[in-house]
């Protein structure tokens, strides 16, 4: 899906936990997520901390969308 949407001309950032799959499938901008059943959350944190965690991941995703890439790139820092 990532690839087909990007092929249609829209940049896509893929947020996912198992980044090797994303690389194999062919996503160009990849942001590693927290865990498979809760990629953008962590039920062990307080609601406030969990929101903060999600906010940081979204920031990273937006940063990835603003970054020019020539090749598949994992934004892990």
């Amino acid at each position, binding site marked *: *899906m990532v*690839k087909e949407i990007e092929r249609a001309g*829209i940049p896509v950032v893929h*947020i996912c936990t198992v980044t090797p799959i*994303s690389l194999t*499938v062919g996503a160009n901008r990849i942001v590693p997520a927290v865990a498979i059943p809760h990629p953008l959350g962590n039920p062990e944190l307080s609601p406030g901390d969990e929101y903060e965690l*999600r906010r940081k991941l979204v920031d990273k995703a937006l940063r990835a969308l*603003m*970054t020019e890439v020539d090749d598949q790139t994992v934004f892990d820092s």
Partner: protein
Amino acid sequence: MSTYRIVHYINQFFGQIGGEEQAHIPAEKRPGPVGPGLAFKQHFGGEAEIVATIICGDSWFNENLDLAKKTVLEMVREEAPDLFIAGPAFNAGRYGVACGTISDAVKTELGIPSLTGMYEENPGADMFRTKVLTVATSNSAAGMRKAVPAMAKLALKLLKGERVGASAEDGYLPDGVRRNFFEKKRGSARAIDMLLKKLSDKPFETEYPMPSFDRVPPMPAIKDITRATIAIVTSGGIVPKGNPDHIESSSASKYGSYNIEGVNDLTSESYETAHGGYDPVYANKDADRVIPVDVLRQYEKEGKIGKLHNWFYTTVGNGTAVASAKKYADEIAEKLISHEVDAVILTST
């Protein structure tokens, strides 16, 4: 005659520990065969035996790749087997990646021959088919009765040091290694057969498939995110409560488009997941954990992004055929373009 020793790796489901709610369990080792191992036993005909079974949760393995690899390798090493078998994983993505990862590690790091089995569209197949012999299976566990004899046959060949045939003969996914054999018919006759089939629109199988390197060049970056419209797409199966379009929990036959105009936060009262391939507890409690509507809505208010697109698009990426996913994405892309969406955040579980 001595009996060959085999260690078998399976996931929590085939280990009969539980479904997705148990996918987080770390690896454990049990003596003898478990689950599909019992079927293997019948096909080994006393020539080989499964001395131990390693059972591991799919999520645990994939979320802790390095630790999982180390833990399972140690368990295998202790048994000093003659062969390692993982799966078959059919079209279960995390299980396939786990089977590929661990068989490859056992082969390269312990020097023990290994073998796995999965469906050709399993992401683990693309990742590991050139590294580990991977028997081609159907896409669901209904194919166990075919997969086990094929894997057992290849296992015995590996154990006895017999020559492995070509992929088409021995039923594994092409691994990029050429193995010569004599065809019954000569090339010109086979080519004419194929041509006749092609001319009459009948299915035929090429002997030389062209490699497919389907890569899409990255689109240019968004220049000014504060003016961009961002849309959310997910394969995590988030749907309005009650799943109004009945998106299937696996092998989804459709996707949904749902309006989130005025929605600031996804709550357990109004949203849930339809996905059957991961433990739904966390997403059902707070679907923002899968699609970050709350944060993006807040950013829209703060002017950090131009706009959060009023619709999100969702399907269940659990055993869903690649061709289906492609079709849904084509349709979704058309809608995104007609709504002048600038960028997409796509989340997967």
